């Protein structure tokens, strides 16, 4: 029983990892209606930037803030320079651009920083909370940070005109222009915000899995599954989906199917759920009268 609880808690901790990156995917989807496969590598790259700053002697929180800003700028620049010129190309061409970005960032990071794993500091205490042996303080703290980001995103999209405008752009760019929204900038802004959310995720993930250029490879797939399971338009759903995936994977691996097939079976189950409930837990069913 103790082992079972331990597996569940450890699954929640890993789920928190998926949730944090899933939030970035939801963010970019809200604005562009695309899932950016390079999101994980952008987060990884930003985390390396944070590592450089901290290694150069900067304090954790200043480095954290500066990295979030850097990531935001990176996102905006990528949208303006790389994505903008192919805006009107077929969706698959844009997917291919994402793949290109993924390999470029991965390869360039390996070249600049080498592939040796690096430790990334945690802002949270070293000692586990209440002396428990189940989850580390960092894992709890990371979940806390993810929840904070979640609330911020929710408030942003629900209650600010800018958030509303972004949702509008995703749905109907032409109508958005007709109410005076600068669509181009909204897309760039969306990329920037998604990259910033991703950078936070990266800095929370790196202390757990270590910093290396391939750190996001597996996580991206799980985050993608989590986002869809929760309903790709819902930040809440993404986080819940992350936790569900994390726990599901652990329990399957430890008790049901064994570790070597847990990924396949977990994904199979998620797809099964999506077959029955295509909009995920929190996704809204869109009804339109023709």
């Amino acid at each position, binding site marked *: 029983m*103790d*082992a079972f609880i*331990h*597996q569940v808690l*450890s*699954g929640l*901790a*890993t789920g928190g*990892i998926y949730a944090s990156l899933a939030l970035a995917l939801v963010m970019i989807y809200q604005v562009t209606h695309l899932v950016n496969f390079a999101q994980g590598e952008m987060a990884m790259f930003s985390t390396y930037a944070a590592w450089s700053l901290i290694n150069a002697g900067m304090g954790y929180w200043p480095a954290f803030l500066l990295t979030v800003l850097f990531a935001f700028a990176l996102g905006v620049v990528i949208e303006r320079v790389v994505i903008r010129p192919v805006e009107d190309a077929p969706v698959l061409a844009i997917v291919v651009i994402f793949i290109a970005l993924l*390999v470029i960032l*991965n*390869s360039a990071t*390996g*070249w600049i920083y*080498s*592939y*040796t*794993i*690096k*430790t990334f500091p945690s802002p949270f205490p070293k000692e*586990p909370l209440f002396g428990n*042996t*189940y989850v*580390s303080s960092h894992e709890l703290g990371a979940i806390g940070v993810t929840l904070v980001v979640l609330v911020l995103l929710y408030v942003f999209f629900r209650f600010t005109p800018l958030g509303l405008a972004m949702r509008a752009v995703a749905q109907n760019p032409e109508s958005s222009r007709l109410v005076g929204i600068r669509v181009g900038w909204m897309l760039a802004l969306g990329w920037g915000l998604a990259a910033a959310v991703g950078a936070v995720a990266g800095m929370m*993930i790196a202390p*757990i*899995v*270590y910093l*290396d*250029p*391939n*750190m996001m*490879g*597996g*996580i991206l*797939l*799980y985050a993608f599954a989590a986002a869809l399971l929760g309903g790709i338009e819902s930040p809440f759903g993404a986080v819940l989906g992350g936790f569900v995936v994390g726990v599901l*994977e*652990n329990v399957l*691996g*430890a008790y049901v199917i*064994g*570790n*070597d097939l847990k*990924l396949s079976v977990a994904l199979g189950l998620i797809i099964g759920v999506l077959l029955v409930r295509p909009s995920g837990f929190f996704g809204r069913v869109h009804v339109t009268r023709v």
Partner: protein
Amino acid sequence: MKSKLVPIAALLAAALASPATLAQKKYDPGASDTEIRIGNTNPYSGPASAYGTIGKTITAYFKMVDDQGGINGRKINFISYDDAYSPPKTVEMVRKLVEQDNVLFVFQTLGTPSNTAIHKYMNMKKVPQLHVATGASKWNDPKNFPWTMGWQPNYQTEARIYAKSILQTKPDVKIGVLYQNDDYGKDYLKGLKDGLGDKAAKAIVAEVSYEVSDPTVDSQIVQLQASGANVFFNVGTPKFAAQAIRKAYDIGWKPVQYLNNVSSSIGAVLTPAGLEKSVGIITTAYLKDYSDSQWANDPAVKRWESFMKKYYPTGDLNDSSNMYGYTVARTLEQVLKQCGDNLTRENVMKQAASMKGQYIDTLLPGITITTSDNDYAPIESVQMQRFNGKRWERFGEVMGN
């Protein structure tokens, strides 16, 4: 052959035919008076690109050799291609090396699947596949594959050494194994089982695998703890090995830990895992570890360091792959020196197979390279060592098969 005619005949031959007859010079494709062409594939891109640094180190090393005048007066032309760790690409690139670039032999092609893919081809073509970068045991098979030779101690042997050690020290042993679900992980697992013999079924209480795409191995470590194991055999690559060591400590699991040699670097594994969390870990080694303070003033390691700084400045000094690449390149240098002016493929193989207790100074003291016609496993012995919180402490004899 003591007649006066001999010098004249030699002169005649030199003037008429190839220079090979002069002073026994013999060449196969890829070798000449001025250069030796060597082929290689490495994963510079793709999922295993972390290992690409080995190819870069070797390239840098032969650059240095050339700067210092080459080997026996010949420049080394080291041609290395990216195979992205994909066997079909390895086949393609190796064929390019052999058929188009006309290399004398290929050296240090990396990865068990990749080398398996070209194994038959190389032996059919009779082109040496020298010092392959994998620890599988199948490369030591001179009867069936006389053109293929490994280099590093193989995984199974290493695991058998751990098995022996476990059986000696712990009477009531319950072993939990964490292994990467691929050829490398399974070789270690097999070696351990072979070493334990008929005790294996009882002694191994849990064997859990992970995939390289797994973000963490936390769940696996929790499983191992729950199995009640009192010995932990950690067969992970650096990132996962470090995660496992940290997690085991954090959840209060205190088994005797055996760590596979691939992840024995202090800088790249134990430091990230936490030095205080790594105390007591047992591993084997055959190379000096730059990040181990006991070698801080070792002249060989110093030489390596200055080589790295000059010829491969972007290389990470903590990455033990760079020490590996340097050492294997020096092994090849020795083989080529021995070849002298007889640079045929046959002679390369012959020289590679006739090293007698050759010591290369970045190997641990007591570890030497020995090969023969029926022994194609250059490094067979390893040294056991235990981590004391600061550095590795060697103990026991140098062990081999």
